[in-house]
């Protein structure tokens, strides 16, 4: 049974009335919470009766053509990187945003990288990991010697008895591989030589029980995630 308050909030969400941090927090929960998803679906179903009675407006003949041209392009993208798309939580999906936010925050990463770049080796790939609200949450730099640094860009709340765990994923069959644990929101250097450092490789941080995931695969909520890109240094 859904909490009364959750159901009302789900109703406000469907009406389009949640905004700002309330919306962000609701969507963060919605990504994982099946009961909340059901509450949203129920309101949506009831209110959709209103859409059924809208006065139809004739579409210009060119609209279908444009759509088919666009899906021709999108179709290719989907087949090439379908897995990558599916990894995204449905938040970006419902927001109607795509990877535009990644491009924006990559600009920020470039600044961080170039400031740090003078004294340290240059990373082969950089990943800006984003929060569910699509704001930059942490940056991963992966270097030629196999080491990685993680630079959190915000204070993540880590509840008692839990830890943050950094994962990377480059191959669907292998699944996510643990890079290491982060007890707090602080920069960390990981010495690893066994991980690939490819473009489009996924990095993500999840919240796990203290000591790391008991199963060796992510079990907790995803705090941030992002894909690696070669920096233009």
């Amino acid at each position, binding site marked *: 049974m859904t909490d009364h308050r959750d159901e009302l909030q789900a109703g406000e969400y469907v009406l389009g009335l949640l905004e700002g941090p309330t919306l962000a927090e609701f969507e963060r929960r919605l990504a994982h919470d099946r009961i909340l998803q059901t509450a949203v679906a129920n309101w949506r*179903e009831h209110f959709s009766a*209103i859409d059924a009675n809208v006065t139809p407006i004739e579409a210009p003949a060119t609209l279908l053509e444009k759509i088919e041209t666009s899906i021709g392009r999108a179709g290719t993208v989907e087949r090439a990187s379908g897995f990558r798309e599916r990894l995204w939580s449905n938040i970006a999906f419902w927001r109607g945003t795509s990877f535009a936010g990644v491009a924006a925050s990559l600009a920020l990463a470039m600044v961080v990288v170039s400031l740090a770049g003078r004294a340290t080796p240059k990373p082969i790939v950089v990943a800006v990991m984003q929060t569910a609200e699509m704001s930059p949450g942490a940056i991963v730099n992966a270097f030629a010697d196999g080491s990685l640094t993680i630079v959190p860009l915000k204070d993540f709340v880590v509840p008692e008895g839990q830890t943050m765990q950094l994962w990377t994923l480059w191959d669907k069959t292998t699944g996510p591989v643990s890079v290491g644990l982060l007890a707090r929101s602080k920069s960390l250097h990981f010495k690893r030589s066994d991980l690939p450092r490819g473009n489009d490789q996924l990095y993500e941080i999840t919240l796990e029980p203290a000591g790391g995931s008991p199963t060796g695969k992510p079990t907790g909520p995803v705090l941030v995630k992002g894909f690696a890109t070669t920096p233009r240094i």
Partner: protein
Amino acid sequence: MSADGNNYAQLLAACGRGDRSALRVIYDGEARKMIGVAMRILKRRELAEEIVHDAFVQIWRFSSRYDPGLGSARAWMFAIVRNRAINALRDGARETSAPDDEINSAMDRESGTENAFDRLAEGSALKRCLEQLDAKRRFAVLLAYVEGLSHGEIAARLNVPLGTCKSWITRSLAQLRECLA
């Protein structure tokens, strides 16, 4: 199944397998209504068409994400349209292009918020439950759904304080929830 006999869940599954003719069937069945829904929110035909274009691309690309356990395929697709339209509205899209006055006045007469309630099918659960709400509160809820207005915009339209508007809507939702259960 929709009223016109299309099984949208099956059509979405076909889209997921790359079957473009399935998307065309969905388009033929719903695109005009989708433009209508986006128009009520954005009041600009060009913007509404753009939203429906983007929505169809999204429906195509993510058709395999539709989960039949979470409501009808039709409600899922219209939620995509409404979400995109409301996002565009909040991003200020409406201010940057000229209004379609002619279409607007026709829209207002036929399918504006004023008539959205009357046009609901008799005997539908939503109509029966909305009927039980005080007229002003019902109108506040409909302004949000039909025109995509925010709390602040609804308060201004109804000339009531923001707090009053918020509590009207919360209480209306509580009443609706009870009635629809």
